[in-house]
């Protein structure tokens, strides 16, 4: 079967094309969905890509969460289907209440674009089955607000549920517990700061991102009727 991905585009999103290309290379049929659409096309997974939705004005993701399309994204998530928010996408999903905690300014108070090593903390999620626990993946980050934070209660629940999927080997932004990516409690919504779509080709420096995107496809195929 061909997996179908809807990529949500806000004014100021800018990684939608890269996500479509990286998913397309894995055989996924992708469709861009403008933020004012009330519904999503029939799809297996939703990608909220990186960028600067609404210019990041006010606060990252703070305006985007009110876009009409977010109702459909919430419904998609509530149905147990996969949602991945990358970078600004994670910030939007946090603001929308689909993921715990918040993303603050980097501890260095500078924008940071660099290659990072992230360690797989949980390989038993729909986003990490193609990797092994403890495996180190080389995936770049590109953000000003990637410093994940939450209160103590939330953190203990996140730990108890094994929601942390990726941790930085060398924390670039001050994120609590070195969190580079984590899921919701149900495990079907992932937010991550590193950009797997940028690590999908050896010529550009790494193919490790394909393990993450590919894991999602395995999950989708496993759900599909035979």
């Amino acid at each position, binding site marked *: 079967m061909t997996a179908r991905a809807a990529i949500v585009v806000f*004014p100021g999103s800018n990684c939608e094309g890269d996500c479509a*290309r990286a998913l397309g290379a894995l055989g996924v049929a992708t469709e861009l969905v403008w933020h004012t659409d009330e519904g999503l096309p029939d799809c297996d997974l939703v990608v909220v890509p990186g960028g*600067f939705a609404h*210019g990041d004005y006010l606060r990252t993701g703070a305006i985007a969460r009110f876009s009409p399309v977010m109702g459909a994204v919430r419904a998609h998530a509530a149905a147990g289907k996969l949602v991945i928010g990358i970078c600004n996408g994670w910030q939007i999903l946090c603001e929308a209440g689909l993921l715990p905690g918040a993303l603050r300014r980097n501890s260095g108070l500078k*924008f940071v674009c660099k290659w990072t090593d992230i360690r797989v903390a949980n390989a038993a999620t729909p986003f990490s089955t193609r990797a092994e626990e403890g495996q180190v993946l080389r995936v*770049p980050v*590109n953000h000003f607000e990637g410093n994940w934070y939450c209160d103590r209660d939330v953190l203990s629940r996140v730990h108890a549920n094994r929601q942390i999927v990726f941790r930085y080997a060398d924390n670039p932004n001050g994120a609590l517990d070195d969190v580079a990516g984590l899921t919701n409690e149900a495990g079907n919504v992932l937010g991550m700061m590193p950009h797997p779509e940028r690590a999908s080709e050896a010529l550009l420096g790494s193919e490790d991102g394909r393990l993450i995107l590919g894991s999602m496809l395995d999950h989708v195929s496993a759900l599909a009727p035979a």
Partner: protein
Amino acid sequence: MGAWVHRELGLTDDELDSIVRRLGRDPTYTELAMFSVMWSEHCSYKSSRKHLATLPSRGDHIIIGPGEGAGVVEVVPGVAVAWKVESHNHPSYVEPGNGAATGVGGIVRDILSMGARPIALLDSLRFGAPGDAHTNYLIDGVVGGISSYGNAIGVPTVGGEAVFDSCYAQNPLVNVACLGIVEGELQQGRARGPGNVFVLIGSSTGRDGIGGASVLASAEFDAGSSEKRPAVQVGDPLAEKLLIEGCLELAGRGLLVGFQDLGAGGISCPVAEMTSKAGTGAVVDLDQVHRREPGMAPFEVMISESQERMLAVVDPADVDEVLAICERWELVGRVIGVVTPTGRVVVEDGGEVVADVPADALAVEGPIYDRASIRPGELEELSAAEPGDGPPQDLGAALLALLSSPTVASKRWIWEQYDHMIGLGTVIGPGADAAVIRLPGSEAAVALAVDGPGRYCVLDPYEGARLAVAEAARNVACTGARPVAVTNCLNFGNPEKPGVMWAFTETVRGLGDACEALGTPVTGGNVSFYNETEGRAVFPTPVIGMLGALEFAADAVGMGLVGDGEALVLLGDADGRDFGGSEYGKVMWGALGGRPPALDIDAEAALHRLLHEAARGHLLRSAHDCSAGGAGVALALAAFAGSRGFEVELPGDEPHRSLFAESPGRAVVSCSRDDLDALSDLAARHAVTAVRIGATGGAALDYGFVAVPLKVAEKAWSTGFATSISTTID
């Protein structure tokens, strides 16, 4: 109108007389304001045009040369790119964050005006020595401005350079280059077809940037320059991002008859230029211009440099579709005028005509000056001065001093603040000789480098310009690309001073000769004069942007050493004499004098052909050019990039000359031992000297006569700039 208003607007008495003669009457205030921006140095190139006309600009692969929004080059058959470099020096000094940000925005719209999608940015920056609190404020502001704007519009900043010298302390240079891929039809800045309408697209028009071209960019600075801050525009990157997407959709659907960006000169500029080029005229109704604030005078609306605006010429039948597309991209689009056959630009406000002038008078009949040019006497003293070529007390300490000097040291602190990866094209990113960007929908790539060795140019602007072209081409060639075209930004002091004008004309002559010899036509560029504060000018600084072509992105060669035990080869001749304007002379002796390095342009061209062919034949594992700091520094940088050391013996009798002389036409390359014979044969065929100097590997930079642990050297290099910039900002 007061008798001296024209002077406040930057027009001379003679220029006013000329305007009165053309109109046959006194100009209205609005007309005077329009002339003041269109006839400003910045917009009219009145001091430089005569000289720029001598530059070589033709070639089979040059689709569009100078004079349009950007040059267009066919890099490989069937694939065309638009590119250009521009300065935003003055605004960046007055207000570094917005000055630099709007510099990015401006050049991006130049590329967009050709109907091309912007896919890469590079910055060439000059500041005073970091560590000084005000300099650090400028660096932090400029880098932050480029970062916040470039990142948000989704165009990667893939390379550039940052050079530090006290002559730039009161006059930083911020030159930004942009490259775009031509995906559909090329757009042209022509207001063809009377009856077609002008549609102003993008941000509202406000009072920001009133007179930016005439007041800021065309005069020197003095102590009161911070009062000019209102003349700096404010950037809105979200608006620019939407403008890019919306306009490319308009272009893709074939809805644009003519298209031009609004930059310096505001609405006046595209209306005058597009009608003049098409032999048409215009009636513009200012009531239709969407505004940011009430109470603006007509002249303010006509010359406001509010950012993120484009002007389209559209068939009236297509207007509804055009406006609908604008609305979908959350852009305001307004019909503000109509194309006429009259040859005149008529501006109406509240039903009254406030300007009625010939389009040609504004756009092409501005003054052209053949300014006095005299070789400055102090050049003799500079030539006779010591270049600083004496041996150091300790070779290892000298190497570390050079590696940690801000100009040589790692600029990671800068480029990690830039998104350099978006678009999935960055095969080689910042920190290398040149950036290599794979073109969308193609296996081909471009290599891009910017270089401007001001310390050579101040000693001899003709030779300095040739060296700038040679180095930029060499940088591109080291990645395996073939240098194909040049854009340039010429940064100089006040052209009304004969010494500055002499340096400018010599620079243009050197630029032309070098480009002719290397077969790289000049496709356009920008001139920035009046880079002086309180009478002190910057070094003559021609920033050369070199475009290289690679048929296959996968053939690109990096600068870092790749494996252990591979052969290291020095390509090109070195006589060890060249210390004039060198980094070694500056860092070790505080010297600036003598002659700049002697350039054999034919040998340089042969080296570039060799590097290109060797890369195509997959003979090279790494390649890095020898420039600031000489072969010693070049080897060290290749080692850092590859995280491994080397063991070499450099030719020559005096170690410091072998290590640090800046003779051009050289590169250090590595290859597998199996390919060494093939590389040597190829070098012989190109008549390029190739000397095997040693092997890669190990934990030291071992030059034979001196060795430094890799870790120690890398620390000096990686912290040299970052420490001095961080200390006083926090």
